[in-house]
């Protein structure tokens, strides 16, 4: 885990790979384990995999997948923008499909395979979509960005799988990765900095590459 002390940014560090990386070893928040006064039936044990690594947690029944990732597993790449399914910043992939992790309870993911932004790539080994966002400046403040990228990866998969959208002309035909389609499908991810035009370019770039 990155030290919460002074943050220092320099491109050299990123290039040589000394930047922070998140380890699942630090699974439990030390504050959490020691202080539970809640009755046992109000808590649960859940196991799933996160970014390919098995994880077992003992949680409050009310804990969302989002809070389990952020507060228990310290995987803070997944963002909390609204906590009510209104912004898309918390988007993660569950068994390959994108969902809002804020509107899903952790215990309902027993056995699921969860992929977060940290699982897509690292500064040293970027996912093609992460590279494309860098290249096209598809972000500014960066807060919605992990959700945008997770969504973007899933959107291209959805188009390939033939899932239609609101703007698909002939819904009995296979959809194409057009700008119109991308914009509609990405609309569940709000970016207040307004990087939309660049995000669409990044996605179009990735979509156009040979598989």
């Amino acid at each position, binding site marked *: *885990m990155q030290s*919460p002390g*002074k*943050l*220092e*940014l*320099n*491109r050299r*560090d990123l290039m040589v790979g000394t*930047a*922070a*990386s*998140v380890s699942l070893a630090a699974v439990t*928040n*030390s*504050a*959490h384990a020691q202080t*539970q*006064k*809640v009755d046992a039936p109000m808590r649960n044990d859940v196991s799933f995999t996160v970014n390919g690594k098995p994880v077992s947690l003992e949680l*409050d029944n*009310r*804990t969302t997948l989002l*809070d389990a990732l*952020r*507060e228990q597993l310290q995987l*803070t*790449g997944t963002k909390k*923008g*609204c*906590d*009510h399914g*209104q912004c898309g*910043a918390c988007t993660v992939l569950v068994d390959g499909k994108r969902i809002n992790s804020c509107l899903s309870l952790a215990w309902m993911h027993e056995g699921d395979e969860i992929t977060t932004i*940290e699982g897509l790539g690292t500064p040293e080994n*970027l996912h093609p979509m*992460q590279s494309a*966002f*860098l*290249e096209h*400046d598809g972000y*500014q*403040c*960066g*807060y*919605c960005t992990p959700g945008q*990228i997770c969504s973007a990866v899933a959107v291209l998969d959805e188009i390939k799988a033939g899932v239609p959208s609101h703007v698909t002309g002939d819904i009995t035909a296979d959809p194409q990765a057009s700008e119109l389609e991308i*914009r*509609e499908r990405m*609309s569940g991810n*709000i*970016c*207040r*900095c*307004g*990087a*939309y*035009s*660049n995000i*669409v370019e990044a996605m179009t770039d990735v979509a156009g590459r040979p598989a």
Partner: protein
Amino acid sequence: MKFDTPATTNPIDQLKVVGQPHHRIEGPLKVTGQAHYAYENNLPNQTYGYVVGAAIAKGRINSMDLDEARKAPGVIDIVTAENAGDLGKGDMNTAKLLGGPEIQHYHQAIALVIAESFEQARAAANLVRVDYAEEKGSFDLEVAKSEATKPESGEPDSDVGDFEAGFDSAAVKFDQTYHTPDQSHSMMEPHASVATWEGDKLKIWHSNQMINWGTNDLAKTLKIERDKIQLMSPFVGGGFGGKLFLRTDALLAALGSRAVNRPVKVALQRPLIPNNTTHRPATIQRIRIGAGEDGKITAIGHEGWSGDLEDGQPETAVQQTRFLYAGADRMTRTRLAVLNLPEGNAMRAPGEAPGLMALEIAMDEMAEQLKLDPVEFRVMNDTQVVPDTPEQQTSDDDSQAKRDEGGSKALPFSQRQLVECLHQGAERFGWNKRNAKPGLVRDGRWLVGFGVAAAFRNNLVMDSGARAILGADGLVTIETDMTDIGTGSYTIIAQTAAEMMGVPLEMVSVRLADSTYPVSSGSGGQFGANSSTAGVYAACVKLREAVAQKLGFNASDAKFADQQVSSGNRSLALKDAAKDGEIVVEDKIEFGDLGKEKQQSTFGAHFVEVGVDRFTGETRIRRMLAICAAGRILNPITARSQVIGAMTMGVGGALMEELAVDKRHGFFVNHDLAGYEVPVHADIPHQEVIFLDETDPNSSPMKAKGVGELGLCGVGAAVANALYNATGVRVREYPITLDKFLPGILPA
């Protein structure tokens, strides 16, 4: 470093690094989820705070029953005004950040419930019982307008010549009133803080745009010394003015942590944000323009009304009208009413954003009335001097200029390429394809229209400091309390230092947003990029001097390039200067009075094409183009992103954004991201941005100005004018939702 004479040639002009399209240096952290925002600084033994907001807009708390909440599982403590101790109020805050017993606005924080877990804190917060004595308040600007008064500060009135007489005698007159609504910043990262005390010292991560203001106001509110606080904000998930000032999450986290003697995390719940924090106030604006038959403006008057809490500030929507167009007889008025809605304050381009939403519709309307093309009408009323320069002593030599400018000595603009922006934009956009007669262009089910608006925002500068460090490895480190709220500060500061020290970008390390670093301009008012890099320039000039001295060069002729320092035939490695220990220098840029010799402003033009569904009135933006003239562009990638983002926000303001006021209960009803609609991907087409070649030696050694707000200024009106051109229905009340013009369009 004092900056009181225009910049001459300096190392920045090499443009080896500055001005180049470098990608964001912090980008790899952001796209991989490794950038840690305030709430993500998880600490050992941490606790969670949940904010309770007031259920009334105005009145008092009779009593609070905390018993049930205190007994709830996991609860450690509850902070309220009653037990928080003696608190002050920050200079930048109008309403108190912790309310009680007096309540000043809806959702004003009245308690922080601290528990072992987020889930426990949230559940317990719902057990806090409050008994209120509600009082009547004033919630309707339209009603309160008649009791609005002249604000004591600022320049609420401006007069040049005799506006009333000039307007009365004008050959062509125009007089209309416009409404802009309350708007919410709605940045994606909620206001969030993590606080921990180490003895009497407070360490706090607080998502904030202005580290110095925030630290000062936190010290003032807590009544402790400023140097007892370390406030950090290395990543800010958007601000737009909503995080300019200390907010309740920081105060409550600090108070909570003091109460429980453990770290406390607080993120303002999204449904509280619109009413708990600040917003852009609604305005009513009356604009009168008088012109000759030739289209020359002879009289222009702009009056603006807005409301705020007692001791609050007006929205200065008339501001740009003093600068933008020529005309001898001029008048502006700013009036402020007391409203008991949440605190109004700055949101991106305060003043100009709502002001141009009105003025630039008025210009479109007047052009039509004069049967002139709206681009040409603006061009013919361009002025290269500030048209309402105050009366000054002038010598006889100036008599001609004096007569030309209605008796004033004219204050020239340092740069003013408005005409170029308009002409180049018109050319590029294909403006000549616009049908001047509205409502006639069809494309299938779409009514199509073009719109234009001028963009204007004054260039502000703020003193800004930085520390520059040369390490033995040749690495240049910059420390400044400047923030990067998505604006690209990390990158342009690194570019500045790299250019100054003659090192590649990879050999610069940037540390930002820590109150223990030199005080910077911070991020706001589009002054951040120019001011903070100028501060880094100053520090690097000092570092160059120190290096030159250490290596035995004359600083004035030493060249810094390729990680070498050289003069004549002698050349040494830069890092050699630090082989006996790192060199640390600090300086700041201090701006003098150059702004009084020449007016520094930024200009632009926005062109928009819309389609309006002829059946339903749904509006879709089909094309957008912005032309900007804003001094040197430090990084075309990040600057362009600032502008397209602002254009996106402008579309929101034009078509959908409005905090709906419940005028009975006094609150913004649509207080979450489902109710307060901001643009989504599907609303925004490909956006084009062009920066005109410009350097402004009066602005700073960087010769740059700001673009982050310019990009928003005028967009709303350009959309509104395009909508009119498409439909033939003029709407003067934002947002221009379909209900306001549907009866005026016919599906056939």
